[in-house]
């Protein structure tokens, strides 16, 4: 498996650390209430198809990236820097 780092280009999966779904970028406000925070922290979709997740290029440039991939076909269709990702 290779991931397209926006800075380094295609790199081996071993260079990356997997964090989880990109919903982690949509941090609720501090006063959003316990239900919203519980949802943000613990509940995730389990899609059959396209999903977006956060990876850290820890053995490379050090960037956090949002990778779009397909859980059914295993196709990796793109990646953007997390700081530029539309959440």
């Amino acid at each position: 498996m290779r991931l397209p780092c926006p800075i380094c280009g295609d790199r081996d999966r071993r260079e990356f650390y997997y964090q989880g779904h990109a919903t982690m970028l949509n941090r609720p406000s501090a006063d959003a209430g316990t239900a919203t925070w519980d949802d943000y922290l613990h509940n995730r979709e389990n899609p059959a198809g396209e999903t977006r997740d956060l990876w850290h290029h820890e053995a490379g440039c050090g960037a956090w990236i949002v990778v779009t991939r397909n859980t059914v076909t295993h196709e990796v269709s793109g990646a953007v820097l997390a700081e530029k990702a539309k959440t």
Partner: protein
Amino acid sequence: MVKLIARTACAGLLPKTIGTITLAEIAAAPVTLIAPHRGQKKATSDALKAAVGVGFPAPNRCVGIAPRAMWCGKDQALLIGVGCPELRGTACIDHSDAWAIVQIEGADAVAVLSRLTPIDLRATEFKAGHTARTLIGHMTGGITRLGSQSFEVMVMRSMAGTLVHDLTQAAENIAARAVNAR
């Protein structure tokens, strides 16, 4: 006053010749990590260029010979071989003696390194002046191409022994295959 004796990172471990390749330590002081603050990269590059003659390198590139500026991460570069000039809007951290830098040279250099790193080191993909932050065995480090059969491999100094061990083992394995092929 205690007199301290300076030791390089690979003192007592290198140089070595194994099969077609040689391993030698590169002494590269002074070294400074340069990290421009947000939005300051252009200004930092201009100031660097004016002061020492090399600009801030593009990702995965190394520019200049002496001094050199080597990209080493997102918005980070190492300035090697010259004292760090005054740079406004930039974090500058002394990395002299922080790195173990080994030059690997010889006909099998690509074959040896390919046993340790997942990146494509063929000359068509990874040219002179290209550098990469990647894995070297279990370590994170940098690989830079110096010439057609010559590379520079660097890891943090604390892992110098492991770097020499890994390079030695990979080189011995390649050399053993060459013997068997005869």
